[in-house]
């Protein structure tokens, strides 16, 4: 506890109750409770409600779950999202690792490394939707890429798969979410004691071996954190998949959007609960591999 806060704590010789700490953390707790916990509880509650054509009726029924779980659509949507999530995860992992490795180990000046890191981060601070639609003029049949490839003579007919396909969806995801993989990896790699690195090299380990034995184990937590972010972001998405697939594909959440637009709240709620359960299982599984609090808050 900081010295400043220690004086605000109730003092008994040298024991103290952290009154000040609790008060300071209270606003955060209250807001998050009201805007995260309570809404999720509401979703769970509504998932059990009935509905008719006009209104939602409080009650208890399992027919929403029945409808969602037995629908073939649900299964196919999940399969689709899992496929997309996996592809995105693989790409962001490879790119993220290369970028983080380059910035931490190959850039000599720390100042330039940070500048380059910021360069990668700046787009994150701009609108996702704009970034997404900025691919449209590039990937279309008359888009820049096709025109360029044809001009150079690599292809003779425009490539169809570039836009309104799984390819464009994954490209968009990678464009938007790689930063979530880069940051934890950059963090983890920066913490590696340079002396370890040099000792390994001195001992004759080639660079690949050093990377395998020194860098990879230390990055485990970074990989885990980044993976959690990327997977949840992909599986929770509803607009990228809709736009970039031209309406051809849907996602679990975009199906929810459709429900909501027709006021089928209980059905959407049931769908949401199931998604949350799936995500929780996935995340819990991933988090078993690392102590997240230690990673983010630091050793105490």
């Amino acid at each position: 506890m900081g010295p400043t806060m220690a004086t605000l704590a109730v003092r008994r010789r040298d024991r103290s109750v952290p009154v000040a700490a609790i008060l300071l953390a209270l606003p955060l707790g209250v807001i998050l409770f009201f805007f995260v916990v309570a809404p999720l509880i509401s979703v769970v509650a509504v998932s059990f409600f009935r509905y008719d054509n006009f209104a939602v009726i409080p009650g208890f029924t399992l027919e929403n779950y029945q409808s969602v779980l037995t629908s073939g659509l649900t299964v196919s949507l999940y399969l689709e999202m899992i496929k997309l999530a996996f592809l995105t995860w693989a790409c962001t992992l490879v790119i993220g690792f290369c970028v983080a490795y380059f910035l931490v180990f190959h850039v000599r000046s720390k100042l330039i490394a940070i500048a380059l890191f910021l360069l990668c981060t700046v787009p994150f601070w701009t609108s996702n939707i704009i970034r997404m639609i900025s691919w449209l003029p590039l990937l279309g049949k008359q888009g820049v890429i096709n025109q360029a490839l044809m001009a150079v003579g690599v292809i003779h007919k425009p490539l169809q798969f570039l836009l309104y396909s799984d390819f464009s969806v994954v490209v968009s995801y990678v464009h938007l979410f790689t930063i979530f993989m880069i940051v934890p990896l950059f963090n983890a790699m920066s913490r590696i004691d340079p002396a370890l690195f040099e000792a390994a090299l001195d001992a004759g380990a080639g660079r690949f071996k050093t990377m395998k034995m020194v860098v990879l184990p230390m990055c485990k937590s970074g990989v885990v954190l980044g993976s959690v972010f990327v997977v949840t972001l992909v599986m929770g998405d509803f607009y990228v998949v809709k736009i970039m697939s031209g309406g051809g594909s849907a996602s679990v959440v975009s199906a929810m959007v459709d429900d909501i637009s027709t006021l089928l709240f209980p059905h959407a709620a049931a769908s949401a609960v199931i998604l949350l359960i799936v995500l929780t299982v996935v995340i819990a599984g991933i988090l078993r591999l690392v102590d997240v609090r230690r990673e983010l808050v630091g050793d105490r």
Partner: protein
Amino acid sequence: MDSTADLSRTEISEHAGAVELAGIVKRYPNGHLAVDGINLRIAGGSYCCLLGPSGCGKTTMLRMIAGHENPTEGEICIDGTDVVGQPPRLRGTAMMFQNYALFPHLSVRDNVAFSLKVRGLSRTERFREADRVIEQVQLTALANRLPLQLSGGQQQRVALARAIITQPRLLLLDEPLSALDEFLRLQMRAELKEMQQRLGITFIHVTHTQLEAVAVADQVVVMSQGRVVQSSSARGIYTEPDSAYVARFMGGQNVLSGSLESVAGGIATLTGGYAVRLIGRAPPIGKNVEFAVRRDRVHLVQAGQPGTPGVNAVTGVVRAVEYQGIFVKATLIPDLGGAEFVIYIDEGEYFQAPVGIGARATGWWNIEEAHLLQAD
């Protein structure tokens, strides 16, 4: 253990800044006992060093006097008033932190004037005071600089100025010289001593460097594992350590031991051929007795030289010879076993009859140079 007897002053001064610690215990919630019962008196206006290895409790002790931590038990009296529970602000103390803790966002002048600012003094008033103190530490030309633009020695002076502007009666220094390189350290410690004498207030200076402590302090308090082992004047600690621990810690002595064989005329004879003058009552025959011999009062000769005394001597193989400029440090591995025996020989004297590594040599001393140690 009450240790006032060895103070160079024969009375506890009524000066500002006299400190008295009674029964101080510090136990942390996790059970760790940092300070285990300390009784100590520090005369007002003196320079006192708390000396000991890491973890001995000296910094904890300092922080408790400052008011940054509270003792679990015991009293801390400054000029006769118990200050336990009082915040630092009210104690009339000021602390100089180990890395100086100069506020990086404030200039030298703002740093020094900080304590006046929080007391509500106006800008003109506090800058005037600050400039006066900055002049005392000779940093007037740098008053507008930020801490990072200063050298280590300059930062220390700023930290000092910042601490003394409130006219404390007691200045607490937490390893003030550790962050400096060797050369600067010697220079700055002279400045600290000079500042203390000029101000006339009590300095309590925590350090783990023995020679630093004896260089500046009027009173040296050796601590180990949360207790005071010995509190004496600098000379007293160095030449007359009470215990084997202090003798070894201060580094200028060899510690030897033997069982008591006989006592005659105030002289105890021990196994191993040692004789040492007794202080007080003789221990029982057969008891293991320890004594210390100053390293620089031992004579070094080749083993087997005619005329080498047989008693009060250690013979063995020379393990190392280190040239230290003013003296040569020779280390013997005693034939009879035990700890290494170290001799400091005057440099000129050594080179008249050098003894090389691997040679057999004898170090001998006069009985007057042996000093009996109390049991730990």
